[in-house]
């Protein structure tokens, strides 16, 4: 047995990084679209959850609180197993593959989207709640004073201002989301991490293949950071050139550099 055999196989590394086969790219794509869907649905559900939390209706705010408490207080891994495997073995619900004409959504991906969305909603709910609360009380009063009712006030006055506050933590959430899709491997979703594991179990190039996986994750999160930067600049347009300085962008936070 030679020590040299344990050395870094650079050819194998570069090959998998720059010339991944179609199966590998498909796994990368699975990671991306499950993360995007989980974040999108989680964000859409998070807003009504935040509004329910702020309600003066006790039952409504209590229900929203309980929801957050349950989903934020338990690990995603456990949630995935309960939703996909647990419900099936208990005979409550079994996911089946569904055909949407051109493409097929496998059972485990349905469970993944549902679980990611429901869990993310709890976190986004907290983020929206804080963002809505950060808007000055005078804004509500000004809207009231011109005769606006609560929902138009929320839509026209409060949410556009809250959006600016939401974007940075939303960016953090999406980066977490991209990375935590690796947990989906436990219910059999062939995403980036599971694909790397599969390759590893055949080739035993553990260091090389997971290094490749790490770089792919890093590329995905970096691309997102650039997109987030553009969104933040867009949302801050009403403050440009004003006395109030722009907050540091995500790009600056990421790189630690000023432009």
């Amino acid at each position, binding site marked *: 047995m030679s020590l040299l055999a344990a050395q870094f196989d650079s050819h194998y590394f570069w090959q998998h990084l720059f010339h991944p086969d179609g199966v590998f790219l498909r796994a990368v794509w699975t990671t991306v679209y499950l993360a995007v869907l989980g974040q999108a649905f989680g964000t859409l559900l998070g807003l009504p959850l935040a509004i329910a939390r702020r309600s003066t209706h006790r039952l409504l705010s209590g229900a929203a609180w309980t929801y957050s408490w349950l989903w934020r207080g338990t690990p995603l891994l456990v949630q995935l197993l309960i939703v996909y495997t647990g419900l099936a073995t208990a005979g409550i619900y079994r996911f089946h593959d569904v055909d949407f004409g051109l493409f097929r959504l496998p059972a485990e991906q349905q469970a993944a989207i549902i679980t990611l969305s429901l869990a993310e909603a709890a976190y986004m709910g907290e983020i929206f709640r804080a963002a809505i609360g950060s808007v*000055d009380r*005078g*804004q509500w*009063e*000004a*809207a*009231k*004073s*011109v*005769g*606006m*009712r*609560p929902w*138009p006030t929320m839509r*026209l*006055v409060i949410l*556009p*201002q809250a959006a600016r506050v939401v974007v940075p933590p939303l960016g953090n959430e999406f980066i977490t989301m991209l990375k935590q899709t690796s947990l989906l491997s436990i219910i059999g979703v062939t995403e980036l991490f599971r694909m790397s594991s599969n390759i590893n179990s055949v080739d035993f190039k553990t260091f090389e293949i997971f290094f490749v996986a790490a770089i792919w994750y890093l590329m995905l999160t970096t691309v997102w950071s650039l997109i987030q930067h553009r969104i933040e600049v867009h949302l801050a347009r*009403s*403050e440009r*050139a*004003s*006395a*109030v300085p722009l907050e540091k962008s995500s790009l600056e936070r990421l790189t630690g550099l000023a432009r």
Partner: protein
Amino acid sequence: MPQLSSESVESNAASAVSSPIVEAIEIDKWFGQLHVLRKVSLTVLPRQVIVIIGPSGSGKSTFLRCVNHLEKIDGGSLTVNGQAIGYRHRRGRLIADSERHIAQQRRNVGMVFQRFNLFPHMTALENVTAAPMHVNGMNRSQARDLGESLLARVGLADRANSYPGHLSGGQQQRVAIARALAMKPALMLFDEATSALDPEMIGEVLDVMKELALDGMTMIVVTHEMGFAREVGDRVIMMDHGAIVEEGTPAELFTNPRNERTQSFLSKIIH
């Protein structure tokens, strides 16, 4: 200096010449243990300018906020345009009003805040047109015409597309006045509208308020600007510790105050 057009203010005031715009009868208001309004009674007739003065914490802002139902009264009765504010009579009983009805009532009352409270994500024009469009359902081009004419009236025709963050305090407050006027209110409330301004900007806002008063707008003005009170006010109300302690014409109250708290307050304010 902003120049207002001479056309008269369109308001519902003209149609109800004799009946009072505001009728407050023995209003009580508590903040927890604190009795902030003690049996405050006040009648405001159409086209009157009422100036409320008094030390901070005297309840003058709270009274103003009650008129617009930003605060709920705990006792007494308050009608604006002949309608009870915040309460409705149903089968002889007073019941709390619906959000919908409160919002409807607020459309007749404009309010200008100490800290402007402009919508920072909207341009000056959008600030003015938001309520006509989204509350009254006015179409975009009509709202735009209305908004531009109101901004011209407050002397800001050239800043229609500026965001509040790019405007001076005085300009922001004038946009806020235009925003309130856009709903064609029968009554305008000014809650220390010049207190947050740098001294050199107070004049431009007071000028707009004066023009408004000359055009016949009914106004309740909470202010520390005694010059304005003397020049524009029909009646001056002195409040202290949640109660009206003295009222009269500016001439009476400023030259010959009878109440000793009014005397001591005025001696501190007017040097």
